[in-house]
């Protein structure tokens, strides 16, 4: 089955890595009772031996060992909302996972800044600071807001595109696929909050 092949690929990709959780555990003669983590091979990148460098064109290259380097890598968050600084997947341009940064803050400060810039570019969701108006017509909500990226007008279809990520954090998805974030609705001014209220 195709799934088998996918598994094979993953195993291939992991060859030659030095920080394999699975094999490490096996080498230490882990107890017979294997956990889920033991039997998967996910490569967590080592904060010390992994080096990032900014390329001329504004991307980032990675060196993960003496003879393992990638001219350009992409970064993807595994948990964009709940753990934005952890479990960052590092991928080749083709989209193959090289490894995962378990905790970005453990890396060198230049690396943190570099990766941060790439992530900022990838995940763009301006913060809404004020809601000037919301007009509703036939299930479409026309927002006019002030945001960290400037004033903007956008159209949100239906109430289900106003997503509550937590009790106080809200994400607005417009019809084009743009995202706008309200990190804490209680920090909005009263009028803005009132306008938003019907969606919450």
């Amino acid at each position: 089955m195709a799934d088998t092949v996918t598994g094979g690929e993953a195993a291939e990709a992991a060859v030659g890595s030095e920080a394999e959780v699975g094999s490490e555990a096996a080498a230490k003669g882990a107890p017979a009772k294997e956990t889920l983590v033991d039997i998967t091979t996910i490569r967590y990148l080592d904060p010390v031996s992994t080096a990032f460098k900014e390329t001329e064109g504004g991307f980032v290259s990675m060196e993960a060992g003496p003879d393992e380097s990638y001219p350009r890598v992409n970064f993807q968050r595994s948990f964009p909302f709940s753990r934005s600084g952890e479990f960052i997947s590092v991928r080749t341009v083709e989209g193959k996972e090289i490894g995962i940064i378990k905790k970005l803050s453990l890396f060198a400060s230049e690396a943190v800044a570099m990766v941060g810039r790439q992530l900022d570019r990838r995940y763009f969701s301006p913060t809404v600071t004020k809601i000037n108006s919301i007009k509703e017509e036939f299930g479409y909500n026309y927002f006019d807001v002030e945001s960290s990226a400037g004033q903007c007008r956008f159209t949100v279809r239906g109430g289900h595109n106003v997503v509550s990520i937590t009790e106080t954090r809200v994400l607005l998805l417009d019809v084009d696929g743009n995202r706008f974030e309200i990190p804490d609705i209680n920090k909005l001014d009263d009028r803005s909050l009132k306008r938003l209220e019907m969606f919450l």
Partner: protein
Amino acid sequence: MKLLYDLPESAMESVSGVLNGESIRYCVPADLDEDNVFITDWIALTETRIITVKGGAFREEIAVADGADYKNVTLVGNGILEGEVNGVPRVIARYSMRHVPRYAYIANILNVMSKGRRPMTKSADDEGVCPKCERRMAEGTLICPYCTSKFTVLKKLKDVLSKHIPLLLLAVGMFWVITGISLISPYITRLFINEVLNPIEPGMTTIFGLERGVTAVMAFVSIMALLSVSSSAIVIVRGRIMTLVGNRIANDLRNVVYEKIQALTLNDMTKRKAGDMMNRVTRDTQRIRDFISHQASQGINMLITLIGICVILFATNWRLALLIIVPIPLVGLVIKNFREKMWIIFHKQWHVYDDASNVLNDILTGIRVVKAFGQEEKEIGRFRKASEDFRDISMSNEKFFNTLFPILNFFVGCSQFLILYFGGRMVLGLEMNVGELIQVMEYASMLYAPLGFMTMLPRAIANAMNALGRIYEIMEVEPDIRNADESVTMDIKGKVGFTNVTFGYQSHEPVIEEMDVDVAEGEMIGLVGHSGAGKTTFINLIMRLYDIDDGSISIDSVDLREIDMNVLRSQIGVVLQESFLFSGTVYQNIVYSKRDATPEEVIAAAKIANAHDFILGFPDGYDTRVGENGHNISGGERQRIAIARAILHNPRILILDEATASLDIEAEQQIQEALGRLTKGRTTFAIAHRLSTLRNANRIMVIDKGRKAEMGTHDELLNMKGIYYKLVMAQRQVTRT
């Protein structure tokens, strides 16, 4: 897609210096900078160069030929145009999601240019943007909700309403009669007091030809009673009529929406939540029915009464009439101030209600999963929370209204005291007699009800309008796929051709790319590939569930888009991984594809599908009820019924999408046999993960990342030692262990 914007004048000036005789062929906004701020920059393409405009002035030029591999990369909430310029990959522009499809075209154009060819793509009007207000509209809608007035919606529903004009007229006539009666009775009261009880001229012994005294009293009382009885009777009849009309209209609407939903394609459907659709069919039409049969009819009644009273009051005593009118603007003011609040309150209630019903829908449709993981408690908790939210919101809303309306009523009631005071003084000053005062008082109190009602009306109207809007929205959705103006009706033989086909569910992300395939009549093609490779998409395109973005698909050398859709689909048979059985009998499920089939044909089809024997095993045989609430049948049995359905359908082209994937080996073998009979002589596309399923295939096509990676006979592909070879080896390994 608009690919040629006009540069602002100042930017144009700055750019014209570097044009060197070239012209701007494409020009698109780049509205996002590296610091995540919206800007108004531009990217312009001339015959040979990319020119970037930043901060309103020329910034940089890149020779297109110096670069390669241009692409639009869709990130999260934004996109970038990148390219390898002089061998270095770099970002050329950054933009919000709105422009992503635009840049997909631009990237294509750049790649064509970099190969020295001349791009043919033309700029056109943007789709999905209102030409009037430039707001984005969601896919599938043709009318901008922002610019559409509610009046247009009503006009749109004219057809539905016009069928019921006679009944509506009858009802309106009755309104007038009822109002007339109720307006006349205070006048009769006045006559009764002034003429019958309180003789102004003692010499008069008769009134209207009646003897004064008890007889006259009797006569007046009977007239009043008669009027009251007949008005009550008419009210009852009118109520019935309005309910009837309301029901009929709601029913018509329901049918319209239902038909529309049927006409929409899968693509349209997946964009909307099923629960949401159901709500529109049931709840919204119900709301409209209630509105017509209660609020609207009451409203008309009240309005007529209101006007009538005002006219009479001014005719009787304009000074007192003014007193009565005074509080009305006050009430209007209050209503106006609370309108926004009321509106929000309703939306909130509506959203919360939607939530609760969605949760319920989730739980019910996923009940097996819920039970399998022992999550009943949690799910019940989830639903309880949702319905408690709904209860809380409803309660607080009721509280709000129950405070607001008494206050409004008090304002209206104030005028009563004023009338008593000033009217009383007029009577004492002999400017007015008692009968007149009582008449005025009575009219004034009759104002009460309509005014009180009018204060409620905005909320009723808002409610109905919302419901109407939601229905209207469905009515306005244009199906993605339409028949060509002159569609061809033909008997399909089964030759299928793909030429350079590219398709993406979102047009900027191709799922099928540059696919060239030729399939001969009667050939069986096995489709193989990883999950997500695009196999299902490929066959969706043959069924024309979606229209392709580029290239062409033909059947018997006729372009798919020219073939009448019903003709096409009636000659394609499909068996999917999980076959859907409608609630109904086994028999009904099999004849679904051919309504006029004889029982002999049905049995023959079932026999070929290896279904006949197990069907007879059911106590109720072919009359066994299946589907929802029906007899529980196994997955294999379900598949075989679906195959029987397809066999009876006798399609020229057969599509099997993992038809046997979910079955055990034995069931699969039986079905394989059935399928072998079914596929004989028909063009067949079979998707299978278990490669052994495809041993009857004439040729195998391997799809990888949306492209045709390999195609040939089993042996040819094995010899190629490519993807197919790897797949076969991997499966052999699995079977061995």
